[in-house]
């Protein structure tokens, strides 16, 4: 198992957001979290990354326990975060955003380089010296993905990566994720577009009130689609 989340609780102050949530990702797999807003998808990601440390339960990454570690220690084990709202460094240039936190700690055989990122996202290459704050939403999203890839993660975590983007740009992002998937990268993704998620991912988890209430493969999701769409409100 690459990532194993075992019945974690997490809270913001007194407000508990996760209630014994569990989740597994095998190496090379793409797994989704789907559900209505405020059900705990982002909190799950924050708990995995150590940004909102779980209060109970355990998280293992590649066999080692990571809950309780600091966010940078968790990231250094090979988790790359593309956060909700992109969170790019607006005062840095496009190239600096990619370089500032770049690392190859997991000693991948073909590490990501600026050239490979620019190959994946040619629009970023054209704007490499531009201040990242001047990019469009879609370009900022590409930058956030590129920035995470430059840390050479084994597991890429994307939170609402196509949120609020124009359809064409959205398609670019999905194509890029499919390409990354084909290269063997493991992916955990939160999104609302079921068609694209079923095409990209192997397994899906419906999150409701801080728990996984349904999980299954893309075929199983397709079979129960109507019922699940009602639950997650798309």
């Amino acid at each position, binding site marked *: 198992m690459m990532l194993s989340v075992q019945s974690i609780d997490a809270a913001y102050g007194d407000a508990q957001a996760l209630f014994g949530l569990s989740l597994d990702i095998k190496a090379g797999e793409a797994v989704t979290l789907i559900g209505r807003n405020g059900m705990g998808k982002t909190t799950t990601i924050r708990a995995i990354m150590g940004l909102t440390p779980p209060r109970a339960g355990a998280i293992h990454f590649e066999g080692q326990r990571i809950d309780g570690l600091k966010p940078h220690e968790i990231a*250094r084990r090979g988790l790359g975060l593309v956060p909700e709202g992109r969170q790019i460094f*607006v*005062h840095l240039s496009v190239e600096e955003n990619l370089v500032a936190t770049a690392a190859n700690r997991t000693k991948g055989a073909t590490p990501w380089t600026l050239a490979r990122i620019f190959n994946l996202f040619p629009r970023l290459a054209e704007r490499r010296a531009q201040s990242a704050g001047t990019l469009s939403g879609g370009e900022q999203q590409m930058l956030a993905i590129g920035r995470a890839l430059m*840390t050479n993660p084994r597991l890429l975590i994307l939170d609402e990566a196509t949120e609020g983007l124009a359809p064409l740009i959205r398609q670019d992002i999905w194509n890029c994720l499919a390409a990354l998937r084909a290269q063997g990268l493991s992916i955990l993704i939160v999104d609302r577009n079921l068609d694209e998620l079923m095409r990209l991912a192997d397994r899906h988890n419906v999150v409701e009130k801080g728990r996984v209430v349904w999980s299954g493969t893309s075929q199983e999701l397709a079979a129960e689609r109507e019922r699940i769409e009602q639950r997650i409100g798309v």
Partner: protein
Amino acid sequence: MQLLFEQLLNGLQLSLTLFLLAAGLTLVFGIMGVINLAHGSLYMVGAYAGALVASKVGGFWLAVPAALAAAAVVGVAMELLVVRRLYARDHLSQVLATFGLILFFNGIIAWGVGRAPLQMDMPTLLSGFVELAPGLPYPTYRLAVMAVGVVVALGLWYVIARTRLGMLIRAGSDKREMVSALGVDIAGLFTLVFGLGALLAGLAGVMVGPIRSVQIGMGEQVLITTFVVIVVGGIGSIRGAFVGALLIGMCDTLGRAYAPMLLKLWLSGPLADGLGASLASIMIYLVMAVALVLRPRGLFPAGG
């Protein structure tokens, strides 16, 4: 004319010293959000370490590295033991805690070294004068201080603009969480930046040693001026600290030299002297007030 030129150079030298202090203070305030009143104490630690090593062990050239090391070590210890606990606190707690540090350092030095000011000798190599123009000698030491200030300013510019450390510093305080989620040890980064600021404050302290007397309380005087510099320049901005230091250093020096003289054009001698001296001492605050009316976030707001 000759006086003006000399005063301009003195102003420049004060400016560059202020810049060394302001650079560290503005980074700590801008990136970590901590108001560090004890930044002046690091300047004092540098000056005392330098003066003590120069007199007890021997030589200015040994005093400089000793002062840098002392300020950096004390700075890192200050961050690890006290300042680190203040990041999540409000400014009032920060002011109280770092004010406590000022009292602590003043007390330690009074107890360990004594209250009498120390003198630090100028290195013989730099104790002469350079004839900048015929009939215009200027102390070599002050020129050397300026040269060091310029070199440090260029070095800092390089670090901030061209290195990954600089990128992470510029990435900004608002993205701390994101920076750590990408694998950067924020706590370590903060300790490093704090230590770097302490090192520069120590450098300023040891360089000022041979020009002014080394005494308890020297940090507090210069700290207030340094805060004026970073507020005028824009908190968190190295470029702002540089321009602010030039503006404040020049205004202060020229104000003290010329305010009484100018007032004598309209007022009688003693009155002009008194009023001029008062005006000179509030000059930098007037400049700050005007700058803040025109640019409320300072001349170069961080990241702007």
